[in-house]
């Protein structure tokens, strides 16, 4: 039996309708998706803030296990993703499977990096004095991802995971080409033992949300992957006041550089012999 679907937002580990009650049809009436409002974004930030506490305090090894489980869940949902890509994007069977493979590959790549990136980019610094001096990366906090207008499953997964590795939480505004991907993708996150609020997925209009994303103080960084120059300017302008870090051009997939965009460095001086 075919049923009409309204795909919910994914906020704080729950499949929530927009508090505004608004929905809109997508992909030739394949489904309706919720149109996230400013309040939905605000609620996501609250969720992400508390999710980040629990996520960043998990051991790197545990974060790695959880992200690897996402790969497993994604693989388990292969048929659902493939069917979605074939129906909405008219992709061939081969192409649709390749897209899923790219996503899984990114999950696995970043899962592997969780307990390695710190050693790779942290350092013991030579200092002139009786001190040990270390630099280690730490999480930034809540990161908003404004995704591309062009749908690319592998890239979306890559962008989300590269933020997660460092212990940050993500609020992703999915692009308009295939917002319906939220349904299976949110189920991947919901069944991976990820603490509630670490990943939040929204569908809606950048026009409505750009300003509030950029001006919310609790959002510490924005991964801006959209093509719109106009909203890029808005986001830049509104972010100046609260000194958010804007990270554009996440082009190359599966790269350590992507992780480094969302960490901060802490340097510790420790007296020798104490």
């Amino acid at each position, binding site marked *: 039996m075919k049923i009409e679907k309204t795909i919910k937002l994914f906020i704080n580990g729950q499949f929530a309708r927009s508090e505004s009650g608004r929905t809109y049809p997508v992909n030739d009436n394949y489904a309706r998706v919720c149109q996230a409002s400013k309040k939905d974004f*605000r609620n996501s*930030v609250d969720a992400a*803030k508390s999710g980040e506490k629990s996520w960043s305090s998990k051991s790197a090894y545990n974060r790695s296990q959880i992200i690897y489980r996402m790969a497993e869940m994604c693989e388990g949902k292969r048929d659902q993703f493939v069917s979605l890509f074939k129906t909405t994007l008219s992709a061939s069977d081969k192409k649709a499977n390749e897209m899923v493979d790219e996503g899984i590959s990114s999950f696995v790549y970043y899962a592997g990096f969780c307990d390695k990136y710190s050693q790779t980019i942290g350092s013991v610094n030579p200092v002139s004095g009786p001190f040990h001096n270390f630099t280690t990366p730490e999480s930034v906090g809540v990161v908003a991802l404004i995704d591309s207008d062009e749908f690319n499953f592998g890239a979306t997964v890559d962008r989300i995971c590269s933020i997660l590795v460092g212990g940050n939480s993500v609020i992703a505004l999915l692009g308009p080409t295939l917002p319906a991907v939220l349904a299976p993708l949110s189920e991947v996150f919901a069944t991976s033992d990820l603490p509630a609020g670490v990943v939040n997925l929204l569908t809606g209009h950048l026009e409505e949300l750009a300003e509030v994303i950029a*001006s*919310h*103080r*609790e959002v510490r960084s924005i991964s801006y992957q959209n093509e719109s120059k106009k909203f890029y300017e808005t986001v830049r302008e509104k972010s100046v*006041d*609260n000194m958010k870090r804007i990270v554009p051009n996440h082009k190359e997939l599966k790269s350590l550089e992507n992780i480094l965009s969302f960490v901060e460095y802490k340097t510790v001086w420790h007296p020798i012999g104490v």
Partner: protein
Amino acid sequence: MPSVSIKVPGGSRITIPHYPVDMVGAGERASSFTKRSIKKESKLDALYLAITMTDLTTLEGADTPGKVKQLCGKAISPVPAHYLQEIKRLAPDKKIRPIPSVAAICVYPEMVPIARKCLEGSGVELASVATAFPAGQLSLDLKLKDVARAIKFGATEIDMVIDRGAFLRGDYQKVFDEIVAVKDICEDRAHLKVILETGELKTLDNVRFASTMAMEAGADFIKTSTGKVTPAATMPVTLVMLQAIWDYYQQTGKKIGMKPAGGIRTAKQAVHYLVMVNEVLGADWLHPKMFRFGASSLLNDLLRQIFKQYTGQYYYQDIFSLD
């Protein structure tokens, strides 16, 4: 209609009706108060009002003098200095009202002397829980000593718990007598708030009856919960208590205050409660002398929302204190 006969001081008896309360109806009506659209200036007014009605509370085994001092500082002056500067910078054209102090601090009796010292001259009231809070399972003479000590230390408001065990086994006379005895000690020296612990009374019928009984026994305020039992304050329970207050006012002309406590964490919830108070009891009760919120984390959310109302932006959560 079932009713309970209670002996009052002086030897005469009063009859307190034990109304059945429509649970579904109470839930429906309570949820209707959450549908009002309160925006802009009205919302800002409500947020300011909610601050002045907050009983900033810390009732933990781990309370220390340092924590109580910090809380007193926050009660008197809830925001750091840069909060208002930041609002002024971001909204230079708006008239910005200073952030008021909260209504009271609520602590354990042992912490009252410390709080008294910190609050001196500030106008912030000092409430102390007493009568073997939160369980209320002690003999009456010890409970009364607890109250007397708190008042001696300088508490201006006493939050007493009723003996729920006695209530649930039907010994209403004991519950009534204890409230009367505590009221005798409080006299005019301290305001008496009676905590019903509605989460343990189980039914709205019981809540309604206990509210009326507490008011008959001399409560100045009736309060939902200790905050130690789930569920704590809910909108339907508070609604039933507000209606009991209204009926008591109609019969006696006495205005009794209301304090929902526990579980009210967001500014949005606080506004819902204010709407309910206004629509059930009227604007006379929209005053810190008649209505209080027992809360700790609520204050930070109120301050965040006030920042948002002025500037259109959300402020950092970490900028406020943790409690």
